[in-house]
């Protein structure tokens, strides 16, 4: 098609000129069409997000209309009497994610420090790849492993120990009250920690590597130790990026479904004990949606999904803003 436009040369007849104009016209139309096609595809991405929000709001409307604000404050979840409240799953979601972040953030930062400051060069790549493989394993694998291997292990070895050690301590005792079920809030939190660890590690490593070597060398030159360089030079310099990475990991933990559903026990109650079974928003939806009878039940589950989406949207948007600020600074 293009070649035609180039043919013709100097001895151009009227017909050639007409042909040439025609080809040019065709190219021009093709150009405009392609531009609009790509633009439309970009807009479809926006429409997907809009569609998610609109469909969730419409689906959740009957429940929100019926229960109003009480939906957010009630613990009751009774399909028989059709009374639904979101507090138990919201509580479970927040607590499991909190446990996950408490473990994964320090461990992830230390691994990133190891990879950027301490690790021999030849080991960096293999460990980096291993961490990324851990990130690529589908969440259902974590779930099945948690159910058959990790939960029984915790039940037999770790939880009795926790109960014996902390069970009689005044305040802490409440966290570790009750029998060791194996499955429960603590187990779900630990599995989530293993799952988000690679995300936090790989983002922290990337931002740590972006620290200008001159800064680190200057600190080393003054006689700083590795720890002091990491703590007082690298970490302050990369703070924004690290927070972005942590929020990204938190977004994962909040929305994670399969790994949690296997090990949380699906019990709709708010229990102070971490060993007790609980539920999260995503686990509730995964467990009950196909069996939900009645519009109000379904609608309440969609309303839970809406709450989850709003929470993760805020967390992820915050994460992106942080990472964008970092990029803007690096670019400047």
């Amino acid at each position, binding site marked *: 098609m293009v070649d035609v436009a180039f043919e013709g040369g100097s001895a151009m007849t009227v017909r050639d000129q007409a042909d040439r104009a025609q080809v040019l016209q065709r190219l021009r139309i093709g150009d405009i069409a392609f531009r609009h096609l790509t633009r439309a595809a970009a807009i479809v991405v926006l429409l997907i997000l809009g569609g998610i929000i609109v469909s969730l709001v419409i689906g959740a409307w009957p429940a929100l209309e019926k229960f109003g604000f009480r939906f957010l404050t009630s613990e009751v979840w009774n399909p028989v009497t059709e009374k639904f409240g979101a507090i138990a799953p919201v509580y479970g979601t927040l607590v499991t994610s909190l446990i996950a972040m408490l473990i994964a953030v320090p461990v992830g930062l230390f691994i990133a420090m190891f990879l950027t400051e301490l690790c021999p060069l030849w080991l960096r790549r293999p460990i980096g790849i291993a961490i990324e493989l851990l990130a690529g394993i589908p969440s259902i694998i974590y779930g099945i492993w948690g159910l*058959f291997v990790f939960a029984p292990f915790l039940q037999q070895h770790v939880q009795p120990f926790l109960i014996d050690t902390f069970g009689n301590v005044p305040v802490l005792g409440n966290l570790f009250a009750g029998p060791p079920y194996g499955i429960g809030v603590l187990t779900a939190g630990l599995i989530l920690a293993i799952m988000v660890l690679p995300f936090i590690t790989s983002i922290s490593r990337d931002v740590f590597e972006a620290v200008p070597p001159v800064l680190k060398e200057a600190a080393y030159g003054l006689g700083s130790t590795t720890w002091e360089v990491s703590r007082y030079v690298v970490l302050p310099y990369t703070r924004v990026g690290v927070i972005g990475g942590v929020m990204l990991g938190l977004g994962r933990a909040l929305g994670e479904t399969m790994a949690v559903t296997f090990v949380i026990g699906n019990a709709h109650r708010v229990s102070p004990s971490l060993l007790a079974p609980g539920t999260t928003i995503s686990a509730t939806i995964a467990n009950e949606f196909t069996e939900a009878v009645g519009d109000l039940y379904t609608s309440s589950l969609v309303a839970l999904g809406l709450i989850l989406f709003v929470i993760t949207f805020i967390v992820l948007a915050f994460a992106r803003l942080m990472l964008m600020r970092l990029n803007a600074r690096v670019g400047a």
Partner: protein
Amino acid sequence: MALYETRRRRNALAKSMAVAATIFGLTWLVLILAVLLWEGFSGLSLAVFTQMTPPPGSAGGLLNPIAGSLVMTTIAVAIGTPLGILAGTYMAEYGRYDKLAFVVRFINDILLSAPSIVIGLFIYEVMVAQMGHFSGWAGAVSLAVIVVPVVVRTTEDMLILVPDTLREAAASIGLPRSLMIRKVAYRAARAGMVTGVLLAVARISGETAPLLFTALNNQFWSLDLNAPVASLPVVIFQFALSPYKDWQQLAWTGALIITLAVLALSIIARSLASARKSS
């Protein structure tokens, strides 16, 4: 001297914490893979690939969920890839600095890590509730919604890496912009874009949550996309939570198949990406 001692001790402590954290992280990878290989391989046989999912208490295979997963993944990629590539093209080639591209980039990054169960609810509301029944189409579309942001992201990143001199050279010989993109920019970024698609396939082949109430599940051989279709992750979910030993064994074997597929895909994607970098 006391200050030096404290600093040295604190440094030694931090260093050993870093080593310990790394060992801790790698231990989980080894533990999970070891158990998975052990449990999965002990149930791996030809029957797994040739027989249907069994009723409880009898032997069988995973043929129908494997086929269902393959079909739905293929359709999802067929829908999601062109859409993602076109949108990524707009952001890198036409609207690199305009407002629309900025907003799309932001929204796309959020979609990239949005909870997949919410996408399942979305497709349930849009397709399953409207059509009145669960279907393989709904499952495929919900997977496509997950493919799009992954492909958009990698396409944009890879096109931005293409040197502008190539574009200018193409423009200087009079190539229209759309042809320049298709014949020059795409060709230069091809390896990276293929990597993006492979990563998207890896991502959706383990996705369970969006299929639970879109494609549902099917105990029998069926590739009718207007009816519920079995998929590997959903069957693993159902079988693992069942009390039957045969089913649990099949769940492990299915988990092994998915993991091997995902790992193979990401290794191929990685080697493609690094081959491009070194050349």
